[in-house]
Structures are given as C-alpha cells and as structure tokens.
C-alpha cells in the first residue's frame, strides 16, 4: 500500500501542522502550503491542486505514515491523497499511527479483498491468555479497561459482544511491589487488607499471603490465598492503577468476565467525612486523591449530545459499508467485463486521536449526592450527570431556591459555600437564552457541585442572597453583564460598568469592535492623509478629536 498523490484543497490556514508532521513533503509558505518539488515527479513546487502530480516512487511507501498523520492533524482537513495497495503491503497494525488509537484509520485494500471490512469502531483488545505472566502492562490495561475500551463497550459494536465465560472465577494469584515505591499511602487507601505502607516502603500483608510472611514480595513472589485473591481482585487492580509510580505488579487468572473497577470516588468521600470540627478538614485521615483530570459536560442536553454522537457514528458506519458494497459490486462488474479493477475506496480519516488528549464522555449520575438531591427534589431536576469528576445538576428555575436550600441545609449534603455564580448566553438555543450556574463547595466534605438553571430571555431568577450572602456581587455582575435580573436582591444595580452603560457586554450579540476602535494604522500614515480622514469621519459622527502634536 502506498500513497501516490498528495494535494492541498482550498482553505489552508497555514498552520504549519503538516510541515511539523511530514517536512519531506509539505512546505508551508506565507500564504499557502505546497507539496515540495523534490518529493514530486514533475519537480515543481505548488499546491498540486490542479495538476495532481505523483509523488516520487521511493517516497510513496516510505512517507505514507507521515502523510496520513499530516492529513489527520490538518485542522481544516484540506490535505487529500490517493492511496493504492502496493505489493509489499504492511500489516494493518503498522498503519495505526499510535498503538492505542481505538479506530483503525485505513481499511487496507488487500485485507478488504480477503476479509470483511474491519470495523471502524474501536477494536476490542485481543483475547488474552488465561494466565498472564509476561505482559503485565497489557493485562492491567485490559483488566482496567482503558477509556477507549469503555467507550468501545458502550458503542453498539458487534465486535465488543463476544465474551469468554470461565469456569473458575477471576482471581489475583500474586502481588508484589517493584522498586521505587514513594510511600504515598494510595495503595493502602484503596486496598487496606493487602497493602501496608511503612516508613520506607510498602509491604504485602501476611494475612493474605500463602507463606504468611510480610514483605514487599519482590524476590520471593509468593502467592496470595486463593479466597483472598478472588475477593480482593478489584481493590488490588484499583490500587495498582492508582499507584503514582506504578510499582504494584500482579498476576491474574480468569480475566474475561472482569468488570471495570468501581470508581473509588465514593469511598474517598466517605473517608473524608470525618472532620475534626466545623470547617476543619482532617487531611491526614483522608489521603490525597490522585488528581482526576477531565471528563466533560455537554450542552444543552446530555441526551441530545449522546443521541447526536450515536447518530453520527451510525451514519459514518453506514456510509463506509455502502462504499464497501459499491466497491464490491464495481469490482465484480469489472472482473466480469475483464477490465482493470477500480480503485478501492479510501475511508475518510477520523480525527487524530492523540494519546495525551481525549474528550471524556459524560456519565449518568451515580454520586450519592446527586441521587439524594434527585430524591429530594422529585421532578424538578431535569438532568443530573457527572463529567470531568464534576457533579452537575440541572434544575428547573422554580426549584432553584429549594435546591440551594437543600444543598446548604441538608445534613448529608452540607454545601456551605457558593464559590462562584455565572451565566452563559446561548442566543441560538431553543427554549432558553441563558444558563446560570452555581458552583457550590462543601468545605467539610471536600466536594463540589454545580447547579445549572436554564433561563429564558427576560425571565427573572430568584436571588440566592438570602441563602448564600456571597451571591450578592456575583448576581450584580450577572445582571451587569447579561441583563438577567434577580428578584429579591437587595441592590440590583450594575457593578462593573457605569450606571448609564447601554447593553450587556457578555451577551454574544454585543460587538467587540465599536465606538473608539482604532482601525487606522497610524504608523503607516506618513503623510497624515489617513489621520485627516479619521478626523473628518469622527467629526461627522459628532466626536471632537484633538489633533495630536507632532513630535
């Protein structure tokens, strides 16, 4: 397989991304991106849009990966290429730019002839051996389920369905600690029955070990008691995953029916709730959680978002299947007529999915706080979900004050502080114009919660000042910037802008350019013509500008 032609469609934003990925082929100039002369057979340097000259034969195969990567990284997707099967076809895996990328970007033509088209959806990991001795990293990944795998399971993929049922239940046979433990207590917090963190290192407790000794188990690698290994499997896997230096290693059998380990958030919170006094947190009793970076929140609706995603994937898939089918019929027809086989279809590249960056999908509410609030508010909650480790509760405007009162007053919630309150303008949305969010913080429970309300244009919200006095200025700021009024507020006046300011600056229709904007580059104005024109214009508008003195 190789790439014969590369060209740049119109619309290049000169972002240098392609040159960074594949400097041998692309050259980014001041105003466009060119295919280099030395890479082309005709030796010219241009965008190659009209002529579509072929690449040099030696480069065709060698630079394939780089060109695909460049095309994927192009933010405006103007890099196009023709791809043909070559005699020396590489294995599919080699085409995948990054090993963990869930989707196979290109369906190889040669493979397509022999086998049914590879599903574009995330590939399931290869079935694992029953006893994983050698490749522990893989075992951890598979057992835990990387984000990609979780997504794969959620998606309606036929490939994800098969699972191997085992006679024996899965259990951990051995656990040991490699060198490099930083004594961080994370493992003990996750699995106190197995690990004990001492002053200098971490040991496997004697109680769970077959040989009954307590040590790091690094050299001897003695096994766990079978019953313990079965019972504690999820906590051990969690501990290994949470270890910041990844020195906890283990062997496992019967992985197939493993469920992803439960999210440890709830346990951590339970531990946190032991507080020494009002507003004093006992940090020692609650070990530091690892920083949970992202997951995201869809707007305006979680369900709409999920439906859209699903529909887009399905449409994509259907298109690809149709392309494949068309190709099959065309090929059959061509073979029947004795002509050359037509070009195999090229699947549009999915977005480059970098290992370091992923958009986490939202998940349904599992947090006890959200469930509790949904019980309390019964019907006034329109959505509740978790994302980026943040809890989001969307309530109806009528139930807002009630919600805030519950959040502050309920003994099991105790959100004492309104940390932030702000709004967002959605001029294009149906049924509402603003979302107002309340960031609540529970100091005693170390927890955050976001309450979201959707507000129509001209609709008043009830003020939260009575419940949270800190809302005073923040509501004034929202009024100042968005024009949302809060009924019951003691002083509903502008705060940052002057009293006589017109308009609400943070609304989307508010212009960023305007009165007083300097649109003349005076450095270029040697003769003063532009200046005079500007003065005249200003005079017409009734603005009296002073002529600056010449230095």
């Amino acid at each position, binding site marked *: 397989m190789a790439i014969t032609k590369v060209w740049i469609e119109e619309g290049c934003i000169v972002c240098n991304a392609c040159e960074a990925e594949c400097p041998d082929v692309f050259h980014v100039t001041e105003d466009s991106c060119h295919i280099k002369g030395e890479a082309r057979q005709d030796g010219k340097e241009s965008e190659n849009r009209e002529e579509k000259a072929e690449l040099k034969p030696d480069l065709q195969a060698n630079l394939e990966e780089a060109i695909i990567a460049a095309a994927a*990284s192009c933010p405006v997707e103007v890099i196009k290429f023709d791809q043909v099967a070559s005699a020396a076809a590489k294995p599919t895996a080699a085409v995948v730019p990054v090993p963990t990328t869930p989707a196979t970007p290109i369906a190889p033509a040669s493979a397509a002839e022999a086998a049914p088209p590879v599903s574009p959806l995330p590939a399931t990991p290869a079935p694992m051996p029953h006893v994983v001795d050698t490749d522990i990293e893989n075992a951890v990944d598979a057992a835990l389920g990387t984000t990609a795998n979780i997504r794969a399971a959620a998606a309606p993929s036929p490939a994800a369905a098969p699972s191997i049922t085992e006679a024996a239940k899965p259990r951990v046979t051995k656990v040991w600690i490699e060198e490099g433990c930083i004594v*961080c207590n994370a493992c003990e917090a996750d699995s106190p029955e197995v690990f004990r963190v001492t002053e200098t290192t971490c040991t496997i407790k004697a109680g769970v070990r077959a040989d009954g000794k307590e040590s790091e188990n690094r050299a001897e690698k003695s096994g766990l008691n079978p019953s313990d290994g079965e019972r504690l499997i999820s906590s051990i896997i969690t501990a290994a995953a949470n270890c910041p230096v990844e020195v906890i290693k283990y062997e496992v059998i019967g992985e197939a029916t493993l469920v992803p380990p439960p999210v440890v958030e709830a346990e951590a919170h339970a531990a946190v709730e032991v507080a020494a006094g009002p507003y004093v947190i006992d940090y020692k009793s609650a070990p530091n959680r690892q920083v949970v970076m*992202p997951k995201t929140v869809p707007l305006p609706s979680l369900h709409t978002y999920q439906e859209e995603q699903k529909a887009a994937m399905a449409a994509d898939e259907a298109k690809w299947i149709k392309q494949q089918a068309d190709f099959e019929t065309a090929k059959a027809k061509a073979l029947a007529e004795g002509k050359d086989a037509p070009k195999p279809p090229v699947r549009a590249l999915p977005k480059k999915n970098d290992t370091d960056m992923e958009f986490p999908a939202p998940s349904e509410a599992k947090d006890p706080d959200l469930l509790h609030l949904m019980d309390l508010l019964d019907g006034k909650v329109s959505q509740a979900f978790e994302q980026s480790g943040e809890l989001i509760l969307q309530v109806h405007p009528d139930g807002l004050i009630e919600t805030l009162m519950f959040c502050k007053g309920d003994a099991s919630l105790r959100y004492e502080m309104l940390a932030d309150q702000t709004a967002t303008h959605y001029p294009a949305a149906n049924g509402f114009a603003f979302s107002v969010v309340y960031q609540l913080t529970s100091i005693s429970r170390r927890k955050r919660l976001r309450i979201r309300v959707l507000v129509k244009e001209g609709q008043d919200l009830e003020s939260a000042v009575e419940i949270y006095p800190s809302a005073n200025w923040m509501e004034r700021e929202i009024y100042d910037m968005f024009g949302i009024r809060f009924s019951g507020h003691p002083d509903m006046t502008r705060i940052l802008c002057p009293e006589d300011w017109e308009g609400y600056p943070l609304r989307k229709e508010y212009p960023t350019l305007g009165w007083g904007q300097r649109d003349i580059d005076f450095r270029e104005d040697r003769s003063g013509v532009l200046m005079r024109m500007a003065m005249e214009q200003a005079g017409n508008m009734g603005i009296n500008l002073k002529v600056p003195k010449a230095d």
Partner: protein
Amino acid sequence: MFKTEEMEINLGPQHPSTHGVLRVKLHLDGETITRCTPMIGYLHRGVEKICENKTFFQGQVWTDRTDYVASVSNNLGWAEGVEKLFGITVPRRAHYIRTMLTELNRITSHLLWLGTHALDIGAMTVFLYAFREREEILSIFEAFCGARLTTTAFRIGGLREDLPPGLEKLVRAFQARFLDCIDEYETLLTENRIWKKRTIGVALLNAEDAIALGVTGPVLRAAGSNYDIRKAFPYASYAEMDFEVATQTAADTYARYLVRLEEMRQAHRIINQCLDGLPEGPVMAKLPKVLKSEVNEVYHAIEAPKGELGYYFVGEKGGQNPYRMHIRAPSFINLQALSKMVVGRLLADVIAAIGTLDVVLGEVDR
C-alpha cells in the same frame, strides 16, 4: 443650635492605600465608620469577553493581566482548566516545575502584600526589604520565561521548554537565604507593640461569615478553617508534596499576617521538595496544533495566593475559542467582606482591612 451630620467621604479611586483604583464610599461619624460601600469597575477591561474571542492558546496572555502580582498562578489556573476541558495529561516533570514556579509566585505575592500592608500601617522599611527578595524571584521568572511580571509561564499541555541551565542554582541560592529574610521581617513587625496594637482585633471576620461571603484563602484560614485547595482538591503535584496548611484562629489582621508568613515558609518547603524530587522526562504533552473543543463545561479552581481562583470554561463543538470563560476572582469575592469588617470601626482600620484582604484591582474588575 448645633447640627450634627455624617460626613460622606470617598476613599479613592485615587488614593495611596487602595492598591489601585478601588473607591470606597464611607460615611463617617467623627472618625467612626457608619457605612461602607466599595465601588468597583474602574479597571474593567472585559477580559472575559476578550478571551471569548481568542483561542485557548492566546487567552492565557490575558490572565497575566488580571492579578498582575500573581500572574504565574493565573497561568496555572488557565492551563489546568483548559487541560481539564480537553482531557490532556501533563507530564509529571512539567507538574513539578509548575508547582515550583507557582509557589515562588505565592512568595512574591505575599511579599508584595506584606510590604504594602505594612506601609499602609506606617511601617515603611518592611516594604523595601520585601521588595528586595521579590526582585530576586522576579529575576528567576525572567530567567525562566523572559518576563518578570506578565509571565505567561506555562503552555497548555505542559511547558514550552524545560528549565534553562542554571535556573536551579538561582532558585537554590534564593532558598538558602529566604528563611532568614522572613525572620528579618518578623523582627521588625511580629513583636512590635504598635504593629500589634494596629492589627490585633482589627477587621474581624469569623469563619461562618467568611464562608457565607465566599471568602477564601489566608483570610479564611486565619479564622480557624484549614480549607486549602492544594490539600482539599489537589492539583498540579501538590498531592505529592509534604506541607502544612497554615491556620490561626484569631480571625483578625494579625492572624492573617501570621498565616501569610507561615505560608511563605511552607512555600519554601514545597519549592525545596520540587527541586529535590524533580523527575526526569518530557515537559510537554503531545497535542495537535489546533485545539477544538467539544460541547462541555468545566470549573477548575486552584489556591491562588489570594484565595480560590476558579476558571469556568464552556466549550462549543469544534470551537477554537472558549465559548464562555469566567474567572472566579478571589479578590472580587473577598472584597465583599470589607464592609462587614469595618463598620463601627475607625478610618485607619479601613486601610488595615483593605490591606489585609489583599485585593488586586486588576483582578477585582477583570
């Protein structure tokens, strides 16, 4: 025969001790405050609106200009907020360097506070002593990123470059003498009778009121709470650092002074740990050249020198700019507590209260 009336007086917007363009409308009965209304907005530049029209990479520059004495903290908040929005994992070495610079920045911010606060109360010398050390840290920033005040120190996904050679030596040299410098400030102030008279029992704000008013940072910690985001919701590499949360229970200006001094000592400790345990590895995550967001929203808060600094991002589908960016500015929220602190007290206490709240008007008005 005689008529008594309250005098209305404007403290600011041009006034030596309002640290910028804060205007406080005071009603005075003699020298006793009967009413106090802070009026803000003189430095409103619409940073949030501007950032909505800049890409995620460009917007960080504006965070330097909100709290301009703690720009590195602001950069960290922005960078981590965007990383949370996109789900970017930052290399551990970058986290360590970020932590170190942020703590250095905490020291500069507290030094500036110490100097100006003492100057407001009349102790002039501490100001220049504090600036001597601040100057040194600013040169460290200059060595790191070329700028002293408006640093834009971090990049989304990590750092632009690794530590330059020799920087560690600079930091170590500073670390070696900084504890003695804090002792020097303490000899001038901590046991000074006039300083104690001016600060003990002044501008009281207990924990309940502080939390109700959303006040965070050293002001809250001086009231007995040990709420510190570095411990409560660890970010960067604070989870791996060994440090104490400085607290006091007196809830007055003197307690806040002690808390901030202790925070400088703890920052010193954290910087040492960062230097000693600096891991090897890359400092930048692999990112595409253009960040395009999904439809989502995040709120990321860090413990800035002045309190909880939160960045709220809303992303739209395929957007290269934040659809909405909001800064939860600690100075803005903390300033609400001013009138509660000073009503019924004397004019000179207003100055002490403004000083002890440690507001920066660039951040209040944004």
